[in-house]
């Protein structure tokens, strides 16, 4: 097994981390597979019908793929337009404010849905608008910040020397189409893949607008039969589609250029034609519109409450619980994600095996992860562990460590191997070279992975609900409870609390990255822009 996965006997540290990764991340799915095999032996006739979508289920799968694909392509396209504009902002307050978009990435999609539903009600927008169109609009708003951030990263992945060289011969707009976009295409491919994954597995936004999607079909089956095996079998086509898309994105990501990062100098500002600048501003305007609706509707709803602070005070312990679960999950997932990212970066069959294993986990429906966790951890012999705060932490790690691994992998591919080789030659001690060279090079990726894991863990519902200790609750569970009986003011207040949490964590992460960069390398070159 160790040989298949690319391990050597001297890799004892990485062995330990990978063993933990396998237990935490693959434990639940292994338990589910065991449950499914048992089910299949007694119900062989059902298996083919569940595995192969036909008729209505096939239509549902196709329409879900179309919705997720449209959202992913538009969010990425608009993201690169807005991202290219934000990337050009070099100085002043705006250059700092642009990083607020990172905070918006962490806002759960259902809060956007809640804001738009409220706005539609205020404006008396007819309820007969096509559900597919509204779901697309809200999901686009929810995933657009991610598209913009990945658009900025895509711009950062382009070597400015290539741009400068091309600008000598071609006009800037041609450089954008012929040089920047092709070089940035790996990052854009990754963006399409990630947003597609988030969209196709999300049933909360479509169901709020009465739109049926395949992810809801899995839930319906689970609801009707209470058989996790049946739900897993129905989920297989969705897993297959998601894996196909992510493998395509992976192919792009594996070709990411080496030696580029956010901290290098940029090319001189480009001069684009007016129509293109208008498109860039329209894309940024769309991002601002969704953000403005989100924040203003939530604030107005809270302001309209007679005692706006009371529900937040009542949720005090839930806020602490959410923060702790998300923080511990983010911290614990990092070493495990690093160990797997290091394996995935190997350009051989073993690297691809780790890719495959991680991607399978990403597309697994959340309640099934929860059921798998119960099957693994709820035994009398380890009863001191089950029913504690460790379980929601494990649920979050099981679901989101693979995403952290993908983010760290991108960072690993950005690290210039010449730097680490040079450090190896000139090092006084290995541990010092690891701390002073290797870790700082990885720091942005590690922090980004920690932030994303924190945000996703704080917003997790499906698996957390199944393993949350009795007597405890997360803010997300409380928000969903209040959503049901129409306490929109309380939902808005708690939504703002969630955003404040994200702002806090995102702000700290950005400050740490900037501080670290300055500590290690001094102020970045001012020829172009930087994180400041």
């Amino acid at each position, binding site marked *: 097994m160790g040989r298949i996965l690319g391990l050597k006997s*001297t890799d*004892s*540290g*990485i062995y330990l*981390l990978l063993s933990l990764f396998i237990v935490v991340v693959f434990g639940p799915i292994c338990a589910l597979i065991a449950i499914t095999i048992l089910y299949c032996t007694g119900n062989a006739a059902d298996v083919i019908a569940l595995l192969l979508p036909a008729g*209505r289920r096939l*239509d549902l799968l196709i329409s879900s793929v179309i919705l997720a694909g449209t959202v992913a392509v538009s969010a990425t396209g608009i993201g690169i337009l807005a991202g290219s504009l934000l990337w050009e902002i070099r100085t002043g307050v705006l250059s700092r404010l642009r990083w607020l978009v990172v905070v918006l990435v962490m806002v759960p999609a259902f809060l956007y849905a809640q804001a738009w539903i409220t706005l539609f009600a205020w404006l008396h927008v*007819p*309820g007969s608008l096509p559900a597919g169109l509204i779901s697309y609009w809200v999901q686009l708003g929810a995933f657009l910040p991610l598209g913009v951030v990945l658009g900025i990263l895509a711009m950062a992945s382009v070597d400015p020397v290539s741009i400068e060289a091309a600008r000598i011969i071609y006009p800037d707009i041609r450089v954008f189409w012929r040089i920047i976009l092709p070089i940035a295409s790996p990052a854009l491919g990754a963006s399409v893949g990630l947003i597609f994954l988030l969209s196709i597995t999300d049933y909360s936004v479509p*169901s709020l*607008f*009465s739109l*049926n999607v395949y992810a809801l079909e899995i839930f*319906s089956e*689970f*609801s*009707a039969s*209470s058989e*996790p095996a049946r739900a897993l079998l129905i989920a297989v086509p969705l897993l297959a589609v998601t894996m196909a898309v992510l493998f395509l994105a992976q192919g792009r990501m594996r070709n990411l250029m080496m030696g580029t990062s956010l901290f290098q100098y940029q090319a001189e500002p480009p001069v684009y034609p007016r129509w293109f600048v208008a498109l860039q501003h329209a894309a940024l305007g769309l991002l601002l519109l969704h953000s403005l609706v989100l924040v203003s509707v939530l604030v107005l709803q809270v302001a309209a409450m007679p005692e706006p602070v009371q529900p937040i005070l009542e949720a005090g312990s839930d806020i602490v619980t959410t923060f*702790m*679960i998300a923080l*511990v999950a983010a911290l*614990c997932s990092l*070493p*495990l994600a*690093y160990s797997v990212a290091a394996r995935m970066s190997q350009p051989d069959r073993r690297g691809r095996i780790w890719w495959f294993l991680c991607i399978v986990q990403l597309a697994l429906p959340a*309640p099934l992860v*929860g*059921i798998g966790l*119960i099957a693994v951890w*709820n*035994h009398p012999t380890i*009863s*001191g562990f089950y*029913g*504690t*705060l*460790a379980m929601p*932490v494990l649920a979050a790690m099981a679901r989101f460590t693979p995403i952290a691994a993908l983010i760290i992998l991108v960072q690993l591919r950005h690290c210039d191997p010449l730097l680490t080789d040079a450090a190896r030659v000139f090092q006084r*001690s*290995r*541990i010092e070279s*690891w701390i002073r060279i*290797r870790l700082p090079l990885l720091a942005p990726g590690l922090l980004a992975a920690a932030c994303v894991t924190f945000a996703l863990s704080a917003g997790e*519902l*499906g698996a957390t*609900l199944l*393993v949350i*200790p*009795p*007597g*405890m609750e997360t803010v997300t*569970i*409380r928000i*969903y*409870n209040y*959503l*049901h*009986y*129409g306490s929109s003011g309380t939902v808005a207040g708690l939504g703002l609390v969630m955003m404040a949490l994200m702002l806090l964590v995102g702000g700290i992460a950005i400050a740490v990255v900037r501080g670290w960069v300055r500590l290690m390398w001094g102020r970045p070159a001012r020829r172009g822009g930087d994180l400041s």
Partner: protein
Amino acid sequence: MQYHQIILAVCGILVVALVIGAAGLFSGGPSGEREVVVYTSVDQVYAEPILQQFEEASGIRVRAVYDVEATKTTGLVNRLIAEKNNPVADVFWNGEFMQMILLKEKGVLAPYVSPEAADIPYPYRDPAGYWAGIGGRARIFLVNTDRLTPDRYPHSIVDLAGGNISGEEIGIPYPIFGTSATHAAALYAVLGDEAAKSFYQELKDRNVRVVDGNSVVRDLVASGQLSVGLTDTDDACGAIEKGAPVAIIIPDQGAGEIGTLIIPTTVAYIASAPHPDEGEALIDYLLSKETEQQLMDIGWIQISPRLNGSSAACIGTDSIRGMAVTPEAMYAKLQQSKQELTEVFVR
């Protein structure tokens, strides 16, 4: 061993320590303290004050897990089934009754005949004592009084499929989730498979609005976007209390008609519960007349199934005739009705 391998090993040990630390942060109450664990799909805003009062009255600490609508209130049922071999919960307090039959079938429940359930008639409690129901909700029509004159009000469930109100004016929740699914199963049991499926197909053919839940139906009727909606009494009473131009019509109350579905709130004892005495104490408290009245006062339930039970003021009458169908008969039709109606309604 290389230095970076040592660092990675230390990281691994730190991960384990952090997770165990998280476990240590919450591992139950102080030793010796009496406690009871309850899983509940009753809305948190209604359940929380009742459980707090039980804590104050009994001195037993309550640790609750609440379900959410987003999981279509099946999250906790599936959790109970998954935890069957090593249960954490002592009591399941459920907003409806069909899942109790599933849990009984799966061996998750144990019988407990509470003295407080003595005046609760069948079919609102299990003959073997596996669960008992207190007050509940009923399926009713909510009509918008600005859009409909009383002579156009529907009186029977079949009026939705062929009455004088156009399909675009009528709203129902998806009959495959929650109480709407239970209602569909009840209609299958009472009307017969073919008649019930034809009824729903007729609704589909008439372009009746099918929406995400009872509360959405309520909002659409209250805002005047629909004339009539099929929903639960709790949602309907909420709209009346807010002063919306709506009225409640209880369907099929005439002679020879089928009656309406009454959905009790149910309580059950979990097999091999870790805190048996405390579990029984909580069940007694939840099934008491006082708790039932309190739940009616705060708006969770509107109808009492007890002998000489009352109804909430918003209903307008104390005598509501329920459907003459057993929970077991409804449960037997649940899977079939969900499958058939999924094919009819889910695009």
